[in-house]
C-alpha cells in the first residue's frame, strides 16, 4: 500500500517543451521585500472527449478535487491572487487549450496576468492530467505537462504541477510534493502516519498496536526511523517505505530513543540509557559502532544536526531545567543556548543553518521560538494554545508543529516568521510530533 502510494506518480514526458525565452525569466523574486502577487485565473479542467460516458462522469467528480488542490497549493505559495471564477468571460466548453486557440484579451480583461488550463482523462486506474500555464501578457505557454497518476490520490498530480510551477516562477524548489510524518492515537494505539505536506492523503504506516513515537525521515526520504515498543521496550526501528521492511536499528537495554539521521545519512544521533543516565550517542550505521557524546548525571535528549553535520543541538537538564545546548562534534565542547524559560525542548536546526526553532514553556503552555545558533535573537512565533515539536520545511520557509488545547492536539503550518498559521485537516485527529520530509523529487 505504502509502496503503491509512493510510486504511483510518474512524470512521463514533456508534452510540449518549455519556450526557451521563458526559462530564464524569474517572474517572482522571493528575496524582494514586498513581492507582488500575480493575478491568476484558473479555468475548470476539461474532461477529455476521448473517454466513454462512464469514465467521463468519474472524471467530472475529479475536477472539483483537482481544482480544490490547485487553489489550495497556489494560495499556500503566497505568490498568487486567484481571480474568482464568476468573473471569467471565456466559455470553458468552447475555448481551446493552446496558445493559438486562446483569446488572451478575454483574460487580460478580467485582470489575469496568468492563466492555468487543463484536461482530465481517466484510463482504468490511471488519472491523466494535462496542465498548461500561460502568460496572458506575452500570450505564451510557460509550462505544459502531462501527469499520469493514480485515481486513488488525484491531489498528488496537482502537487507535482505546483512544484514545477513554483520552481519555474521563483527559481527555487517547491515543497508541494513533500510529506509529513506524525503520530496519532486515534485508533487506540500511537501509530505513525504519513500525509502530504497539507495534511491530506494521510495513511497509517505502522500497524503494530504497541506504542510508536518520534518518527524521523532519512535524508533520502525513502526510509524513516521511529521509536517503537513493538518488541516490548523502547527500541529504535527503521522502516523502508518502499519495501515495508522494518528493522531494529538500536535495541540496547534501557531506552533507545530520539534517533536523527546525520545529513549524509551515514549516522544516527540518539539517546541510550543502558545502565547509565540517558546520554547522547552517535551510531555509525555501517560499522554499527556507538560513540558516546555526553556523560553526566542528567538527561540528554532530542538531538538535531546542523546542516553541515558538525554540531548537534539538544536538550539537557544538567543546569536544573531542560535547556537547549549545542555540542561541537569536533571539539566535544557543549555550549548552553537558552537561559530563560522553565522548559525548553525540541530543537530543530533550519535547513540553511541560520536558525534553531524550539518549543519553550515559561509557566504553562509551550510556544514555538527561533534563535540564532549562538543563542542570540530569540523570537517568539506562537502565542495561543500550547505549541510544540517544530519541524522545518526543506526549503526553510515554513514550520509544521503541533498545537493543543485541553488535551486535544492538531497540526499547524506557519511561515518561518510566525505569520500565516493554518490548521491542517488530516482526517485522523489527535496528531502530534510532526516532521517535514526532505525534498522528495
Amino acid at each position, binding site marked *: 500500500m505504502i509502496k503503491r502510494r509512493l510510486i504511483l506518480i510518474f512524470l512521463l514526458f514533456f508534452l510540449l517543451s518549455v519556450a526557451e525565452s521563458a526559462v530564464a525569466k524569474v517572474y517572482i523574486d522571493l528575496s524582494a521585500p514586498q513581492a507582488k502577487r500575480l493575478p491568476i485565473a484558473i479555468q475548470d479542467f476539461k474532461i477529455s472527449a476521448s473517454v466513454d460516458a462512464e469514465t467521463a462522469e468519474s472524471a467530472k467528480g475529479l475536477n472539483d478535487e483537482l481544482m480544490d488542490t490547485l487553489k489550495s497549493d497556489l494560495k499556500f505559495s503566497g505568490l498568487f491572487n486567484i481571480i474568482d471564477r464568476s468573473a471569467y468571460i471565456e466559455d470553458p466548453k468552447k475555448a481551446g487549450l493552446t496558445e493559438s486557440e486562446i483569446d488572451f484579451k478575454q483574460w487580460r480583461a478580467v485582470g489575469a496576468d496568468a492563466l492555468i488550463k487543463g484536461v482530465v482523462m481517466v484510463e482504468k486506474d490511471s488519472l491523466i492530467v494535462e496542465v498548461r500555464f500561460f502568460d496572458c501578457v506575452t500570450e505564451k505557454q510557460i509550462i505544459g505537462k502531462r501527469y499520469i497518476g493514480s485515481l486513488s490520490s488525484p491531489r498528488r498530480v496537482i502537487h507535482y504541477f505546483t512544484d514545477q510551477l513554483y520552481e519555474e516562477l521563483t527559481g527555487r524548489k517547491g515543497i508541494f510534493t513533500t510529506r509529513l510524518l506524525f503520530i496519532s492515537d486515534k485508533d487506540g494505539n500511537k501509530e505513525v502516519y504519513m500525509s502530504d505536506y497539507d495534511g491530506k492523503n494521510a495513511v497509517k504506516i505502522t500497524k503494530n498496536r504497541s*506504542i510508536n513515537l518520534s518518527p524521523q525521515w532519512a535524508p533520502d526520504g525513502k526510509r524513516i526511523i521511529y521509536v517503537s515498543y513493538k518488541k516490548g521496550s*523502547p527500541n529504535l526501528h527503521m522502516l523502508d517505505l518502499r519495501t515495508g521492511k522494518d528493522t531494529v536499528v538500536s535495541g540496547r537495554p534501557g*531506552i533507545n530513543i530520539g534517533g536523527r539521521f546525520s545529513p549524509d545519512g551515514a549516522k544516527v544521533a540518539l*539517546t541510550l540509557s543502558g545502565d547509565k543516565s540517558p546520554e547522547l550517542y552517535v551510531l555509525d550505521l555501517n560499522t554499527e559502532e556507538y560513540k558516546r557524546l555526553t556523560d553526566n548525571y542528567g538527561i540528554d535528549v532530542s538531538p538535531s544536526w546542523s546542516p553541515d553535520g558538525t554540531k548537534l543541538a539538544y536538550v539537557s537538564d544538567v543546569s536544573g531545567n531542560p535547556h537547549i545546548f549545542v555540542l561541537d562534534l569536533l571539539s566535544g565542547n557543549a555550549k548552553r543556548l537558552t537561559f530563560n524559560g522553565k*522548559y525548553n525542548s525540541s530543537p530543530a536546526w533550519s535547513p540553511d543553518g541560520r536558525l534553531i526553532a524550539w518549543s519553550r514553556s515559561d509557566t504553562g503552555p509551550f510556544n514555538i521560538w527561533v534563535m540564532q545558533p549562538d543563542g542570540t535573537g530569540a523570537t517568539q512565533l506562537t502565542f495561543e494554545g500550547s505549541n510544540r515539536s517544530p519541524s522545518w520545511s526543506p526549503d526553510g520557509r515554513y514550520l509544521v508543529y503541533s498545537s493543543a488545547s485541553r*488535551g486535544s492536539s492538531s497540526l499547524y503550518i506557519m511561515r518561518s516568521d510566525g505569520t500565516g498559521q493554518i490548521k491542517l485537516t488530516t482526517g485522523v485527529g489527535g496528531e502530534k*510530533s510532526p516532521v517535514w520530509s526532505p525534498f522528495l523529487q
Partner: protein
Amino acid sequence: MKRYYKVLPLMLLTMTLAAGCGGKKMINEDIAGQAPPAASAESDKAPQSVVVPEDKPVTEDVKSEDLSGGAASKSGGKFASLAPGDELTRVAESKGQLFTVYFDFDKYNIRDGDRESLSKNAKWLGLNSSVKVRIEGHADERGETEYNLALGDKRAKNVEKYLEDMGIKAVRLSTISYGEEKPADPGHDEDAWSKNRRAEFAITSAN
C-alpha cells in the same frame, strides 16, 4: 486494544466486587495506619489498577479476585506476608504490584515521603526472595515525548538503585520507561499529573 478485551470482564468483576463489598472502605482505613498515604490513595482506585502489565499472565488476576472477594485479613496467599493481612501483600496478590512511588514535576529524586513505601517494598522482596519485579517509570503529559521517556527511565533507575542499596539483588530487578504514554489518570490537571509521575512495580515472576 485486544489486551483490554481480555481485561474488561475482570475490570467489571472487580468493580462489582468493590461495590458489593460494603466493608471495603473500613478495611482500608483500618490498615491505612501501616501504609504510606500515597499507597492508600492508590488502593482506592480499584477499577483502574486492574489494567495489568502486558506480560503478566491473566491467571494471576483470577486469583486476585478470590482474595479481594474474601476477607482482607485472609492469609495463605501465594506470597509471604509482612504481617497478617498487610496492605502490601494484598496489593501484590490482587494487582501483581508493590507500592507505587510518586515524583515532583521534572524530578527523579525519591521523595522523603516515599522512602517508607520503598523500605516496605524492599522488606517484602526480602521475604519473598523468589519474586522478580519490573520497575516502570512514568511521566506526566506536560513535557516533551522524548524528554519524558528519559525522565521515566531516570525515575525507574533511581528506584531500582534504592532497592539495590537496600540489599535486593540486581538480577531480581529490571526497569522500563513508558514516558508519558501510560497515564494512571487520563485527566489534564495537577491532580491527574501528580498521579502520573510515578514508578510502579510489576511482579514479573513469582518463583
